[in-house]
């Protein structure tokens, strides 16, 4: 079964902007929601959203990290994500 990629965005408080925190592979939006909530559960999120990667339109860079979808053998959770909430603020800077 083919599973599209959903990008995951979240924020810890109402005052913060949503940030990209990673992605999941899921058959549909319902499963993407569950997978995102259950996979990126290291924080007590105020808000989390998922967006189908295919719906993201690059504006100025065609080598955007959101395009193209990774091949199946690369579809591992966290592999292209920011490692954890905060990303570059963490030691090592996460994986961008």
């Amino acid at each position, binding site marked *: 079964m083919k599973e599209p990629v959903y990008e995951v965005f979240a924020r810890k408080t109402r005052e913060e902007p949503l940030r990209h925190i990673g992605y999941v592979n899921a058959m549909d939006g319902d*499963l993407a929601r569950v997978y995102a909530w259950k996979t990126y559960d290291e924080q007590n999120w105020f808000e989390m959203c998922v967006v189908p990667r295919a719906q993201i339109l690059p504006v100025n860079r065609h080598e955007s990290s959101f395009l193209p979808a990774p091949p199946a053998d690369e579809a591992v959770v966290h592999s292209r994500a920011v490692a954890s909430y905060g990303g570059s603020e963490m030691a090592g800077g996460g994986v961008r």
Partner: protein
Amino acid sequence: MSTVAAPGTAFERADALPGDVRAPLRDLILVLADSKRLLGIRYSDWMLGAPSLEAGISASSMAQDEWGHGRLTYALLGEFGDEPKALEHEREASEYRNPEALDRPVRSWSELVALALLVDTALAVQYEALVDSRYTPVRNRVQKLLDEEAFHFQYAAGWARGLGKSAQVRGELRDAVASLLPQTLRWFGRAEAAERLVQEGIVRARPDALRERFLSCIGPVLQDAGLAGELGVGERDGRWSWSGEIGWEGWDDTTRRAGGSGPDEETIARVRGDKNRALLMD
């Protein structure tokens, strides 16, 4: 769900409950606690065998949720003179009150999806009828649990829809649901057994209303999966029903089981924590 309004003030403690309500409420709480504990085991069986990493991570998380719900539900029994720790660690398999479907491991991913869609949803529907309970200790604990259950339902529904689209496994899912559906509808029990709890506003819906509510949750999913008709589940004027008949032979209102000797030995050893019995903390 057509809920039943009951006037009167809240019952803050178990000893404030009418005498003929205490026993059926204790029965219900123990049924729910055991069911949660066993369902957690079944999700945990698939942490490493799920079709994708995300599905396995979610199964693992749902196992934790169920064990948390079980712990929280067992704790309610302290009010009834029970020792929750003894209930969790010292009972024989035959004393467990989980649905029979949880007695032994499921054999396939389709069966797990059916279990999640039917048994987990049935439990959530029964807990939902406690959200406005007049029994305060129960009411205080249920909402958070239901918030977590919303994700479990999305998980089960997403997978059921997905498997329904696969010619390869669609039949497997249909057979698994067909096997579980009658017993899960029966699990809500008989009207007479629940009547006092409903009259006193402890449980806010009668078994038939819970069955209908349950069908209104799973019916649209089965329809999307292309299975509703084959399984006798249908909707008319906004109301979902099942065309089959529930068999009550051997049914025990207190355990909500119709026979069987309880979970198998390996399962019960895991449930009780037999391997680490020497390390149990007071």
